């Protein structure tokens, strides 16, 4: 079987002309720049079923691997469909989806997304020069996007700079729902732990700690990663990496064997060190607000993460982002005054 998903450049798939290959992600999918018949440029993610079928390194059943891969595709497609139907303007939704097949090849399931000319947030030209006002506006947009997902019981699950796209001048959207989960009581959702990039994962995940409550586990995880994005935007810093530089080596997740609860006081003090250093570098006018936001979002105990007035409230959404959005908006305005 030929590896069709990795070789789509130049082909026409439905109404889309595949212009060029952009990247390969773990062999299981390939990314392409595509153009619609009407001239709209877009981004295509093609799932590589052949890769799974030919995978020699996989230790389990290939049937299971392929089935899992297709299940992932179906899951993402359905989530994106839901987001599209709900008109979530701060989430990058699918413009199209389908299956492409050619003789002698496995079929290629694909998803087509809105194209972001600058790529993800890390490569947006404004990141270097526009200052805090732009950065806080981008953060505000991310908060809104996450709130849109959370209010539909969807946890994004892989919130990181690479998954934030900035359209036009400053309209930020959350992309890539590949590791997202919906609290729909399905076995997939109930049993799943953290599935995103561990480098940005909430600290408890790095220690192998899993919360029982779905919301605490997944929405709480998103809150931490949102804190990571705030740290990245206001201080050019990778939050987890920074915390680890403050944490004595004995407590590093790959060294520590005592469980997360036992590591908590050390993790907490390292987190506070980090927050203190980040905020000290900011203009005085916004230091206190940013510090509070970072403390709420990067709180090491997932059950205590989030705005204090919502996280401890009985009933309602403990991880409601409404107050966070409002404060993010206020900080953005303050930053504009001092710019």
């Amino acid at each position, binding site marked *: 079987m030929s590896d069709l998903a990795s070789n789509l450049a130049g082909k026409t798939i439905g109404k889309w002309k595949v212009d060029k290959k952009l990247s390969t992600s773990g062999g299981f999918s390939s990314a392409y720049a595509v153009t619609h018949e009407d001239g709209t440029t877009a981004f295509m993610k093609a799932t590589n079923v052949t890769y799974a079928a030919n995978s020699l390194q996989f230790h389990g059943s290939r049937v299971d691997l392929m089935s899992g891969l297709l299940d992932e595709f179906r899951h993402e497609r359905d989530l994106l469909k839901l987001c599209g139907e709900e008109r979530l303007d701060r989430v990058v939704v699918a413009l199209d989806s389908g299956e492409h097949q050619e003789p002698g090849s496995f079929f290629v399931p694909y998803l087509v997304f809105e194209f972001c000319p600058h790529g993800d947030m890390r490569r947006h030209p404004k990141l270097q020069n526009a200052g805090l006002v732009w950065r806080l506006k981008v953060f505000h947009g991310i908060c809104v996007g996450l709130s849109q997902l959370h209010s539909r019981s969807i946890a994004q699950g892989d919130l990181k700079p690479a998954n934030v796209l900035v359209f036009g001048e400053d309209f930020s959207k959350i992309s890539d729902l590949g590791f997202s989960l919906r609290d729909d009581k399905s076995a997939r959702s109930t049993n799943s732990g953290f599935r995103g990039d561990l480098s940005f994962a909430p600290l408890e995940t790095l220690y192998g700690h899993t919360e029982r409550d779905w919301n605490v586990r997944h929405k709480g995880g998103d809150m931490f990663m949102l804190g990571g994005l705030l740290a990245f935007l206001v201080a*050019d810093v990778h939050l987890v990496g*920074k915390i680890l530089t403050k944490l*004595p080596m*004995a407590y590093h997740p790959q060294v520590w064997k005592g469980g997360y609860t036992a590591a*908590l006081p050390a993790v907490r003090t390292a987190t506070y060190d980090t927050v*203190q250093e980040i905020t000290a570098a900011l203009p005085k006018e916004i230091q206190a607000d940013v510090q509070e936001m970072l403390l709420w979002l990067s709180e090491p105990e997932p059950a205590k993460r989030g705005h204090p007035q919502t996280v401890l409230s009985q009933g309602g959404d403990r991880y409601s982002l409404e107050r966070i959005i409002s404060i993010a908006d206020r900080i953005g305005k303050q930053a504009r005054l001092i710019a």
Partner: protein
Amino acid sequence: MNEADHNKRVVLPQWLPFRQASSQREAGAFQSTETPVDFGPAQQAFVEALEEFRVSPSPYVAIELMGTAQVLGRTEVARQMAEYVLTQNFLGSVAHTQALAVLGRESHFPLGDQRAQLKLTKQRVQKFPRDAIAWLDQARLYTILGSYQNARRSVLAALHLAPGERFITRSAIRFFVHFGKWDEALQHAQRAYALNADPMIFGPLLSVASRLGKLPAQVKGVVKGALASPNQFLHSETLEAFGTLELMAGADQRSKPYFRQAWRDPALSVVGHSQWILREHLPTLAPDQKINFWTSKEAVSWLRFNTLDFGQTTIDANEWALEEPFSRSPHILGTIAACISGDFANAAQVAERGLIANPKDDILQNNLAFALLRDGRVIEGEKAFAPLLSRVDDKKEVAIAATYGLLLMSKGQVAAGTQYYLEAINRAVELKDRRNAVRASLNFIVSNLEATKTIDSGLLKSVQTAIAELRDPACLGVAAVLAKQLKASDLGGSDTLSTAAREFAESVDRSREKFQQSVVANLLAASPKPPPPDGGAA
């Protein structure tokens, strides 16, 4: 001069600042292993992101990769990214400090003295009131400064914020014991152990419970499990504490298996404690043990004292005191060693430092007065002795009476001074404290020689016999000092006294030689040598 009461010593963890404590093995030793986290996919994604970066470098991607490399333990890539980040001047200062930290080039500002550090920790707990470790570090600083109530409040805050946590609990136990609050230490240890059945909490719990005679119900089961456990390090404190319990009950033989097992892979507190067991109780176990005493400043100090190298002991005890500035023991040992070395000014300074954290400590107060008087600073010595004056006639006080004798003699009141010295000697005899009787006698002979240029040959002879039998390093040290002084004195031209002095000196030399050949004097020499301070070859 007198020293800490060693008859009721217990195995207690050190209380170090968090950063320092984190580098000890005690911080990360655990029995159970967590389900390992699979970093494989993250490693794969990292490799791809790195390849992408090499093709199309971006400063913000470099920041991410630097952080990711740290999470994944990819030190070399983290360093490469850090070097790259440092070349990008427009990146924020936090990114640059992180890069410097990755490269090990972080600037460390001097922390200043304890009061300056306390100011910083106060700000810290005000800003981050849920930081248990900051509360505990604050408590330690208050303890060093002798402020019990403030320290206690801070310890309780830390215990409240992190109940059952190992570092917090062990430090809290040490805190309460330091201030003599043994019941509270036990109460908090029990509460923590109920939440977290950690062997490194049970060890100090058992020590404190033994001291109070309130053994926990589960002690036999836990000790049995500790004895059978392959993780000897984790259980070493429990075994050492139980061995000590047996030893104090007079069951020397029964205690030995516990000590042997505890010493196979001992925690630091066990190393510190084991030297005392070997010196004072079970020297016969010395040939079997392979403890690296150099890991413990406490052990090194005490064992150095036993080599009769009192100058070096002063230095070692000072290092020990820097590690545990709130503790009285290194300061007491430091003053004794410095006095025997004849460095009375230093001895007084050490005692004064120890008194900051232990303002009501009689031993340190007495040693301060002694050092000052021997240094010829009579007015200061008298002032230092003032808090002890009311205890002079207490029949249980040997050292205080002897130092009062020294004070009186230093003020020219030789007869009255002699009377108190003799009173001190009599008290020690009545208390069957032969060691203190000999020390008081030696000091009396030294003082009397200085004041009257003569000696009591009968007393000198009986002290000479006792020294040979006692084999006590402090007695041997003071005796050597006295022998030197006798040699330098003409003793009023008396042949009889000169002969007695010569015989005394010869006997002390023999006793010292014999002592130096003993097992306990050679424990440190037999211990594996520490690496050179710079970590490299000379």
